[in-house]
């Protein structure tokens, strides 16, 4: 940059010499001028996000919600977390956008335009829970590297599109197919055009589920650019990184997909449990599939003060990856006693479920309300951090809010 400003000054003075008068524009170039395309953007405006969203990273963009922003049953764009691995693509033309199906295990390589996809295949809408594999990472000790998500990297929006199964079957799946991998239009942070920032996928069995869709709408509108416009793979209940944004190619693989962030420690946990901080070899790490059972209190916001004798209404959501939540409980005495609270059935498979109840407090003082969900396999959320892992994934410890009764 120094060299640049030196050149700037040199150029301006040589211009002055050439025209032998003051440069009209030169004198108006303010000190510290920043070219328009490089000016500091306002992410809240740019992505239409709630002002209370928390920016973890601005290059690449990583923004999370706070628990109380997730109170809606269907998460609006304004409260949806952003997790990006690379540089967001620009200038997307939906007229020329295509999706190709290729790979070792596809019978016929095929390419579809967006209108092909929309006209050829039946449309389906589902509410699908997408949670970042690293949601809750900030609590691990020793710390795990990466964006330090707290509790807000989860959402459940309505996604509309066509079933991936219908498209894959149209192209034809060979009997040796085991996995699919997506390829996206985002670019690598280093600027290296040969590198993909992220290219993940899932076993064929997940790819063929009814709810695994190629979505072109989110909450009944075109998907916002930052969330994957014009086409996003949605695989609810699994780490949200399986739901590739800006998808333009899907490979049907005869082996586990090996794109960036499928290998090493990315989106993997030790196959066998390890002590906190223990080193784990790459070959001893296993790919995360379904996300674990979890819940979040979205009302009230933590820090509520109420008068003694008044009941506190709470509500929130619970989800369990591929499974369903069958029981919801809360505790106001740090787990000494638990009280069951009603939880609704999901609107469709892989959608989060809603709970609400009214709590009475025995006396004045400081309390924490802890929430605990249990899934169909009778597995409940732990109160403490679950098994430590090198990248800090899958923290499903109970969510809690602080309350004061005065």
């Amino acid at each position: 940059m120094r060299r640049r400003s030196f050149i700037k000054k040199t150029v301006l003075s040589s211009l002055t010499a050439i025209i032998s008068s003051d440069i009209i524009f030169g004198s108006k170039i303010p000190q510290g001028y920043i070219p328009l395309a490089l000016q500091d953007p306002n992410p809240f405006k740019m992505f239409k996000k709630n002002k209370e969203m928390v920016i973890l990273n601005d290059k690449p963009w990583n923004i999370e919600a706070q628990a109380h922003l997730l109170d809606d049953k269907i998460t609006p764009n304004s409260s949806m977390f952003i997790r990006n691995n690379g540089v967001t693509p620009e200038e997307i033309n939906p007229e020329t956008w295509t999706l190709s199906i290729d790979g070792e295990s596809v019978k016929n390589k095929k390419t579809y335009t967006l209108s092909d996809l929309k006209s050829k295949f039946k449309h389906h809408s589902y509410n699908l829970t997408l949670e970042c594999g690293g949601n809750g990472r900030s609590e691990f000790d020793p710390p795990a590297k990466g964006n330090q998500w707290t509790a807000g990297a989860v959402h459940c929006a309505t996604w509309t599109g066509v079933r991936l199964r219908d498209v894959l079957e149209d192209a034809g799946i060979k009997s040796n197919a085991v996995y699919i991998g997506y390829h996206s239009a985002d670019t690598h942070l280093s600027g290296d055009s040969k590198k993909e920032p992220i290219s993940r996928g899932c076993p064929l069995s997940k790819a063929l589920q009814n709810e695994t869709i190629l979505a072109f709408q989110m909450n009944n509108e075109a998907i916002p650019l930052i969330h994957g416009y014009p086409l996003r793979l949605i695989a609810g209940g699994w780490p949200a990184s399986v739901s590739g944004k800006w998808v333009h190619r899907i490979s049907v693989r005869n082996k586990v997909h090996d794109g960036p962030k499928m290998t090493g420690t990315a989106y993997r946990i030790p196959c066998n449990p390890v002590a906190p901080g223990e080193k784990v070899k790459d070959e001893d790490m296993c790919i995360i599939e379904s996300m674990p059972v979890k819940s979040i209190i979205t009302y009230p916001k933590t820090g509520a003060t109420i008068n003694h004798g008044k009941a506190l209404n709470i509500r929130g959501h619970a989800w369990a990856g591929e499974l369903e939540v069958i029981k919801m409980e809360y505790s106001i005495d740090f787990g000494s006693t638990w009280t069951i609270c009603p939880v609704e059935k999901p609107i469709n498979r892989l959608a989060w479920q809603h709970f609400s109840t009214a709590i009475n407090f025995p006396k004045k003082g400081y309390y924490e309300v802890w929430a605990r969900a249990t899934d169909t396999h009778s597995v409940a959320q732990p109160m403490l951090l679950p098994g430590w892992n090198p990248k800090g994934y899958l923290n499903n410890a109970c969510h809690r809010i602080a309350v004061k009764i005065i």
Partner: protein
Amino acid sequence: MNGNKEFQKKIKRAEKTAYIAMLFSFIASVLLLFAVFDPSFSIFGNKGTKHIYSTIAENEDKIENGIHIRTGLIDAEGLITVVNNCTNCHSAKLVVQNKMSAESWNATIKWMQETQNLWDLGSNQEIIVNYLVTNYPALAKGRRMVLKDIDWYTLKK
């Protein structure tokens, strides 16, 4: 009379040459201006696509209250080495969120070199890691932290 005309012609020709020269130097200077300020000619719609969401400010190494304004990093020994090597691809926000041991930082640097096109840091690696562990030390969190920084408010119904 004749000599006068000849002279006027010559003047006109000279004037023309001067105008053309001025025109050329003007075009050249405009091109030069573009080369410096807008090398991708983004003003004509060909947007320099790569870094539209990135953040750049000039007067770039300004320090206020011990903070390097452009990156938000703490002003301490090694700051500029960290700025120059660790904020090109990703934001400094990613760096300061991570409070790790020297061993973990060295492993992270190795990973970035193997997979993310990070260059060999040479003797700068020690400066960088020392800066990070000194200014952003790891906190002991145990199995569950106490709830902190609670923003108390009266819940109205």
